[in-house]
């Protein structure tokens, strides 16, 4: 009886396996095949028209003035469009990773606008994930866009990106605990071991480290990038650097877990620590801007375009800038702030002068990207 039962279960096993193999082959034959590679074919242009319906926007946190009198509410009141404003972007790579399978298929997960960094916008565009924008649909934008943002290197004719805000990456310092930190090199000081965090963006942290060593990231070779990455790797291993973060450094500053962090200039609204202040490193910062882009499959491009025009009105843009304290791309904001008597009008963070940012560099993509990125990822994942 036992032997019989065993043989029967053995036969069952074989039968099941045979069926499984056949099924697998069938599955493989009837689907998929190509994975990745981006969308090929012509890029579509976003359609204009009257704005109605619902608009879903994905953005970084702390990047808009919230609440009942905020920009979103104002837009809804004026146009009747219902806006779903989602703050779900915490890092360019992370967001891209989440969305990529859908973008690959021409879907945008219901969003009509994302806000991503220059290099990410370019990456998405090259993969065919973005729609192109007709300037004729954006009169307010191109009337008020600051001149030096009109022809950037990654999108010379502004075919697929419209700047949202700009900013600088420097050092946030808890002045009550570490008042003497003024340079990225100070972050490697052993007396701050374990009390320092840095950003996990390849184009920011290693670039700043290189700047602090007197190397210009725009001209650096792959080996110089790798050298900076190695220095960071050693600091991470020794415990000098507590963590590599996206937005989370604001949490650590609030909780008092760290005394300094490489971070973004306008994040004051996210940090609940009255002693924290943003400092321009003595050797310079990285300057960047984030862009609104319209993805393929965006459900309501007309409303998206209306939104873009709306936020480029100086009276709207000034409200945003007052709250987020980042660098506005809209001409006329400074004047309005002066009229309001706001001290932000004179702030170096919101209106950095040429002099202030003389040593700053843009967000540079390193040469031999794959090799450098791999080394960086090794450091990030310990």
């Amino acid at each position: 009886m036992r032997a019989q039962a065993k043989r029967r279960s053995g036969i069952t096993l074989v039968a099941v396996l045979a069926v499984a193999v056949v099924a697998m082959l069938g599955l493989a034959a009837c689907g998929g095949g190509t994975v990745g590679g981006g969308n090929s074919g012509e890029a579509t242009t976003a359609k204009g028209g009257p704005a109605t319906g619902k608009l879903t926007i994905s953005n970084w946190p702390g990047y808009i003035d919230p609440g009942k009198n905020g920009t979103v509410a104002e837009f809804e009141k004026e146009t009747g469009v219902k806006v779903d404003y989602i703050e779900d972007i915490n890092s360019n790579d992370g967001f891209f990773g989440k969305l990529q399978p859908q973008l690959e298929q021409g879907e945008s997960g219901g969003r009509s606008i994302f806000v991503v960094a220059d290099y990410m916008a370019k990456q998405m565009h090259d993969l065919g994930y973005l729609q192109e924008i007709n300037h004729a649909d954006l009169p307010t934008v191109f009337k008020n866009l600051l001149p030096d943002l009109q022809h950037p290197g990654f999108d010379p004719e502004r075919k697929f990106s419209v700047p949202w805000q700009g900013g600088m990456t420097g050092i946030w310092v808890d002045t009550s605990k570490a008042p003497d930190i003024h340079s990225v090199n100070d972050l490697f000081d052993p007396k701050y071991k374990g009390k320092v965090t840095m950003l996990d963006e390849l184009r920011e942290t290693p670039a700043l480290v290189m700047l602090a060593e007197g190397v210009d990231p725009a001209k650096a070779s792959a080996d110089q990038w790798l050298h900076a990455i190695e220095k960071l790797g050693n600091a991470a291993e020794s415990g000098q650097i507590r963590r590599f973060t996206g937005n989370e450094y604001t949490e650590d500053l609030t909780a008092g877990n760290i005394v300094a962090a490489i971070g973004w200039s306008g994040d004051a609204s996210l940090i609940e620590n009255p002693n924290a202040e943003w400092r321009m490193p003595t050797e310079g910062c990285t300057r960047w801007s984030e862009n609104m882009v319209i993805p393929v499959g965006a459900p309501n491009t007309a409303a998206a375009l209306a939104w873009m025009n709306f936020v480029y009105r100086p009276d709207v843009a000034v409200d945003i800038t007052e709250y987020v304290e980042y660098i506005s791309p809209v001409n006329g904001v400074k004047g309005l702030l002066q009229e309001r008597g706001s001290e932000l009008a004179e702030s170096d963070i919101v209106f950095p002068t040429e002099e202030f940012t003389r040593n700053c560099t843009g967000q540079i993509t390193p040469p031999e990207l794959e090799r450098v990125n791999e080394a960086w990822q090794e450091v990030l994942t310990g």
Partner: protein
Amino acid sequence: MASLSRAWAWLRRNALPIYAGLAVAYLLIPIVVIAVFSFGATPKGKLTFGLDHGFTTEYWRSAFSRPDLNEALFTSLRLAVLATAISTVIGTLMAIALVRHKFHGRQLTNLLIVIPMATPEVVIGASLLSMFIYYTLALGFTTLLIAHVMFSISFVVVVVRSRLIGFDRHLEEAAADLGATPLATFRTVTLPLLAPGILAAALLAFSLSIDDFVISNFNSGTTVTFPLYVYGVSLRGVPVQVNVLATMLFLLLTIAVMLVLWQQRRAERMTAVRPQPAGRPALAGGSA
């Protein structure tokens, strides 16, 4: 001297219960922290450590004032209810088959049920993602539902099974003796007595679904569930409302468990007219 040795003896006798008390306290620490800090006032509405800004019920009153949080919670609840319904039905059927019937391939079935329970969520999430990528399927609510049902089935089977095993068949036999058809017996005798076990399994499935972070992170695309929302905000300041809602959820599930336990007691009393096998505790108990 005598009192010291007496004290020592008392300690030794009660060491185990004292230890149990400490261990339970340890288990409940985070829950207490979460609940307590839902009452802490903060300048910007983000969670900070310490009640030094004062005590307030403001966030309880404005618990539903954040639309993105509400939507995430609602999505999670919808997902959990659907996943629970589907997986409980499927799992119960499987449990009945496993306990009450003969069939080929028992070992294979057992294996198939056990392995998902032991597999790390990363692997489950990643493999599902691989399949969805291969077929370029859109990630979202449906893919989440599929995943949640999948990992719940095994747990439902185990819970219902353990209840079925301890089941006393005499009542069913009595019903049959009185002329009831198998289906009628099932409906009027088996199912009601099985109900607490099924409820417990459903509760477990519900908790697993609401709780799930890793698998959802891989397969949600842009749909935001409650845990995913919490993860997002944890990177930049958790709004206190999250604590409030988490505490509410905890209380809700606690009440549900009390109900299940009460049901169980009722079922036990209903079948209390049979002799207990010597040395064994009451059968109809067992872990929820």
